[in-house]
């Protein structure tokens, strides 16, 4: 286990079907280069290479590298993006702290949109296939990515998930990231838009406390707004804080049940769909 945060040898895995259990011990290595199929067909992101020893000897010298640390992730993200665009699929990376209502929002969104557009979902969690199962109950295809001890999805996990899911052409792919308001911010998955949820049961200063997440998002969904009459929550302050971080952030105030409902979010998706259709023609 890693000394920083524990996110090391858990080994991310993708579960294509309904609930499997896996017991795999992985070494402390580079998780995203390789995967292997275990007996039940699940994809496990396992341990990577150990040391590299190069034959021959050389003198001490300085090497200029000037390479982005995330370049490997970014290359795979660009491949994901190209692949999705070529298939006319709009991918939305949904991020928030745990419990902001991402899965409930998705379930209700799918109910309203599934007869209109093809929809598929990639679910990211450290453990369990509970969320993918909830999505499948709506009749939509979903693949669960378990990140093990990992705290965020990365582009390689999404690439593998796409191979399994094969989302339908011309549809919407929702990627529900691991519930975490910090780590997913730094990782491009190849999505078309990044959307962060902030529920009204959280603090108005969430954007100031976790600026990277809001700075990297295209839109903020203010969720659970039906609870506002029962809370002392200042929506305007939340929006103002978020726009201090990201001046051009779209803001969508929603509730999965009751009023105001999901209309502004559905309209936002409709608008996005329109933009991508125009761009494709």
């Amino acid at each position: 286990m890693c000394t920083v945060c524990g996110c090391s040898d858990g080994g991310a895995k993708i579960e294509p079907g309904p609930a499997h259990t896996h017991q795999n011990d992985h070494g402390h290595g580079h998780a995203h280069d390789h995967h292997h199929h275990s007996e039940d067909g699940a994809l496990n992101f396992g341990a990577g290479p150990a040391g590299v020893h190069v034959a021959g000897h050389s003198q001490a010298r300085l090497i200029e590298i000037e390479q982005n640390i995330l370049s490997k992730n970014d290359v795979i993200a660009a491949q994901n993006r190209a692949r999705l665009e070529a298939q006319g699929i709009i991918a939305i990376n949904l991020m928030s702290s745990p419990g902001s209502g991402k899965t409930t929002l998705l379930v209700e969104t799918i109910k309203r949109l599934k007869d209109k557009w093809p929809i598929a979902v990639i679910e990211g969690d450290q453990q369990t296939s509970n969320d993918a199962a909830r999505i499948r109950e709506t009749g939509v295809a979903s693949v669960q990515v378990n990140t093990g001890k990992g705290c965020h999805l990365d582009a390689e996990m999404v690439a593998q998930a796409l191979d399994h899911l094969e989302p339908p052409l011309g549809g919407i792919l929702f990627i529900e990231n691991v519930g975490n308001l910090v780590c997913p911010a730094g990782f491009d998955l190849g999505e078309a838009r990044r959307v962060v949820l902030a529920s009204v049961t959280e603090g108005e200063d969430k954007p100031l406390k976790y600026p990277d997440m809001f700075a990297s998002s295209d839109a903020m969904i203010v969720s659970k707004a039906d609870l506002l009459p029962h809370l002392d929550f200042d929506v305007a302050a939340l929006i103002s804080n978020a726009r201090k971080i990201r001046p051009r952030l779209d803001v969508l105030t929603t509730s999965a049940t009751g009023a105001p409902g999901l209309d502004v979010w559905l309209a936002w998706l409709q608008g996005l769909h329109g933009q991508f259709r125009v761009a494709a023609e």
Partner: protein
Amino acid sequence: MHELDLARSVVDAIQAEAVKQSFRKVDLIVLEIGALSCVDPHALEFGMDAATRGTCAEGAKLEIQSPPGEAQCFGCGETVALARKGDPCPNCGSFQLVVSGGEELKIKSLEVH
């Protein structure tokens, strides 16, 4: 805590470089981690210690350069220093800022033998 993943990416890149440029041991790793990047340098240092174990970079000294935050202000049109995301423009108080520097996440150079 994504710093360990980033540390692994650094080690991956170094190992690829070791094959390309034929070196056996890394003495110094110079990274550029912008002040406004999503990375905590201390956590990264910790992660590097773990991620380099058993590799050609084990025991290498780590130098982290931290370019300061900088933003374009649409309020006053100036390029200004920005200590933290969410701070107002130090010049005019506007929040209409677009970060233009300090988000670097880069491997700058290596000293190897």
